């Protein structure tokens, strides 16, 4: 395909393809669609080439935010409350507000009551009021998650250490806890009780029900050397194998990574606080300092859209630049 303008309806020197190519060049988008069980991932540059349409009208759209780490104040980001506010501003500026938010953990840096207080206070500015949570290891540091559970599970019927499921517009959502009772030398862990619950929870569902699973630590082996994985996630995914569309949303690693395995799409979100190094590229994981002008390009949120009857699910990341 040539780079010449083929359709310049607005006479502004840029056509739709050119605009999308430019957006893609700026690193603003990667689009995931699941259609008829076949998944395709294309950059916006490729979409510009093929002329495929971006998703328009949807029956359900929700947003994933993650790893806000309220209380962190080191070099990697001295004002994580401010960048969290910017993320909320982005949500408030969306032409169609999301139905709800999912927070995939590490609300706070040190599980302190005052950190949870700050998070709750800032969140009040968000137009979207429904938020579903799963805890990160930073939220359960000294009390096994007691304070977290008291605050963030009021609107759901949580079981055990805080796992639950709910239905929205024909999509079945499952929030899992994999940051508690971790074993020496191991990874994230779901545990027998939660896995048994999961098996029973999805048993009665039709295989055509779209499933969205969310948990803090990735449910796939992103980089076990850094603890970026969950030891018993295979068993969980075994219970979901028969479903035609499974989307797994995780946080913890503060960067976007995807993997597709059969009908399962795995996706990790950016943090609103600070980036972490790509797997294996540093001595260890942890907050990564980047030039100040680059920070917001590495922070962001994830938008997920589902259109009923089309079996289509789109996951789109956007940064805070």
């Amino acid at each position: 395909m040539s780079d010449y303008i083929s359709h310049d309806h607005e006479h502004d020197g840029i056509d739709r393809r050119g605009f999308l190519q430019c957006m893609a060049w700026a690193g603003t988008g990667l689009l995931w669609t699941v259609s008829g069980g076949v998944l395709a991932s294309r950059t916006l540059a490729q979409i510009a080439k093929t002329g495929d349409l971006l998703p328009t009208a949807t029956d359900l759209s929700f947003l994933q935010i993650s790893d806000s780490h309220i209380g962190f104040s080191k070099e990697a980001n001295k004002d994580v409350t401010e960048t969290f506010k910017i993320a909320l501003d982005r949500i408030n500026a969306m032409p169609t507000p999301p139905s709800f938010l999912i927070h995939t953990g590490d609300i706070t840096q040190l599980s302190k009551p005052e950190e949870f207080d700050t998070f709750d206070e800032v969140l009040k500015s968000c137009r979207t009021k429904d938020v579903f949570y799963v805890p990160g290891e930073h939220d359960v540091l000294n009390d096994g998650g007691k304070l977290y559970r008291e605050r963030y599970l009021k609107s759901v019927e949580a079981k055990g250490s805080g796992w639950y499921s709910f239905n929205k517009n024909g999509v079945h959502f499952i929030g899992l806890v994999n940051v508690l009772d971790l074993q020496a030398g191991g990874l994230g862990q779901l545990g027998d009780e939660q896995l048994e619950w999961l098996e029973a929870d999805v048993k009665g569902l039709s295989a055509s029900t779209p499933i969205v699973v969310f948990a803090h630590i990735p449910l796939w082996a992103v980089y076990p050397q850094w603890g970026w994985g969950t030891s018993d996630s295979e068993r969980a995914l075994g219970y979901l194998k028969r479903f035609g569309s499974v989307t797994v949303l995780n946080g913890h690693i503060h960067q976007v990574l995807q993997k597709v395995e059969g009908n399962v799409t795995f996706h990790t979100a950016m943090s609103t606080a600070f980036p972490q190094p790509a797997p294996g590229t540093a001595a260890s994981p942890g907050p990564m300092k980047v030039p100040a002008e680059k920070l917001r390009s590495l922070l962001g949120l994830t938008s997920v859209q589902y259109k009923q009857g089309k079996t289509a699910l789109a996951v789109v990341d956007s940064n805070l630049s």
Partner: protein
Amino acid sequence: MTTLTPKNKRAALLCGVAFLNLSVFALAGQMKNVDSTKQNRIEIKDFAFNPKTITVKSGEKITWINRDEEPHTVVSVEKQFKKSSALDTDQEFTITAGAPGTYTYFCSVHPKMTGTIVVEK
């Protein structure tokens, strides 16, 4: 016979002081075996305990200090000693080594991080 000139006297005194110092040092060396104030330090850096294995005498203190920007904990695998709370950057945690034996511990936040304490008599 050598007479003690003022200069010689000074040399003799210095010798005596040096001898006394050596004695004190030797005594301190012996005391070290049972010194409960000795600090055995383990640095937590880059998601690892350094040194990973430490050998101490029963009754000595062991102190961990967190040099990461991530919180870490020190938890006995077999619950043989009190666990730390989450240590923020530059925070310390100290225990006193108990009965001789081998103790394994880990960070309950990042369980890949493990370490061993060998306590001798």
